[in-house]
């Protein structure tokens, strides 16, 4: 399934690339007559993210595939710009799937982390002698913080840029101006992922400071305490921010 999805993506991207390359240079460089280029951004904008959705989105390895596809499209954009293709045309044909897949990746990663927090919370609550210190409100606060910080800001600003790029394919003045000033804002919002001041350590870091030497040889009680400490480490980190 993954193989066929990736194959479909690669063939589609190659067809788009060949389409851009085969466009005559004179019509590509013409800003006032964009209709003659015969390129529409909508097929690439729709089919590439939809092709990514075929992948098994609940698996961790899928995020690596999507990230690799995103990097490939970015390299293609830089390559076409270096070859002298019209920047507006390149961004409207390849930039839209690039940003859409990036938004998809961010939303997917955020949901994966939130689902793991919720599952871990349920697991701890079901355990005997469960130390429920954070509670539902703390969990909700952690999830909403993650949604806003990791997903919402970037998604909203990216959708503004994507909408402007779709309009800019027709070279309307307002859309081109919107792309001009919204791209730098998007670039600065991307660094919302600055490493957090209290970056969470590995489980081995947690076990080394306590009485549990390793995860593999610990008893069930020790493993439970490690789980509790790991849970507090993550949840308090998000709640206190």
């Amino acid at each position, binding site marked *: 399934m993954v193989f066929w999805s990736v194959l479909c993506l690669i063939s589609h991207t190659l067809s788009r690339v060949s389409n851009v390359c085969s466009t005559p240079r004179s019509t590509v460089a*013409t800003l*006032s007559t964009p209709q003659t280029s015969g390129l529409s951004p909508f097929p690439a904008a729709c089919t590439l993210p939809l092709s990514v959705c075929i992948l098994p989105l609940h698996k961790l390895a899928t*995020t690596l595939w999507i990230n690799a596809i995103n990097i490939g499209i970015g390299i293609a954009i*830089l390559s076409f710009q270096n070859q002298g293709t019209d920047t507006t045309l390149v961004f409207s044909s390849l930039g839209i799937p690039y940003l859409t897949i990036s938004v998809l990746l961010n939303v997917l*990663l955020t949901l994966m982390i939130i689902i793991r927090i919720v599952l871990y919370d349920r697991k701890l609550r079901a355990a005997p002698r469960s130390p429920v210190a954070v509670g539902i409100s703390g969990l909700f606060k952690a999830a909403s913080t993650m949604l806003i910080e990791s997903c919402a800001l970037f998604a909203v600003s990216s959708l503004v840029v994507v909408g402007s790029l779709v309009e800019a394919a027709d*070279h309307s*003045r307002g859309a081109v101006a919107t792309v001009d000033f919204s791209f730098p804002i998007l670039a600065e919002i991307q660094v919302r*992922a*600055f490493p957090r001041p209290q*970056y969470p350590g590995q489980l081995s870091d947690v076990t080394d400071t306590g009485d549990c030497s390793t995860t593999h040889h610990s008893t069930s009680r020790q493993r439970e305490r490690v789980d509790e400490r790991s849970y507090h480490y993550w949840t308090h980190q998000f709640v206190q921010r």
Partner: protein
Amino acid sequence: MPEASSAQFSTVPLPTPSSIHAHFDIRFIEGLLISLFFRCMAALLNFAHRREEGIKWWLVFYTLAMFSFVTVYTGMNLYIQSISFIDNRQDVPAYSPRASGPLNYQHNFRQTSLGLIPNTMFNLNNWLADGFLVGSLFDFAHTLPGV
């Protein structure tokens, strides 16, 4: 109305005031970014809080790289906006089908370093940000096994 907008676009250059408003927004967010960067670096390099695990230098350099990329991108983009929308806003095209104005001026240097470096910085910054989120997810999955 693509024909009408194209005709209007080919004869009338983009107005300068919208570009200036955009500059104010970008500088405001850049100020937020600089303050966030210094707070983050102060926390990452704080020996008192990191006595047990030590300073994670890869995080420091990762943050520094992301900040450098986005600062170079913003600086060069502001410069491009300035020279195209203010200094050369009535740039005349080399041949008739091309549109006049700042976009024509930007189109001329798209293959030079002035046109390529900002987009490269944007892509590198995007890859670093996405890569950090992917790494966080794998780190998270490792920290909470069995979920």
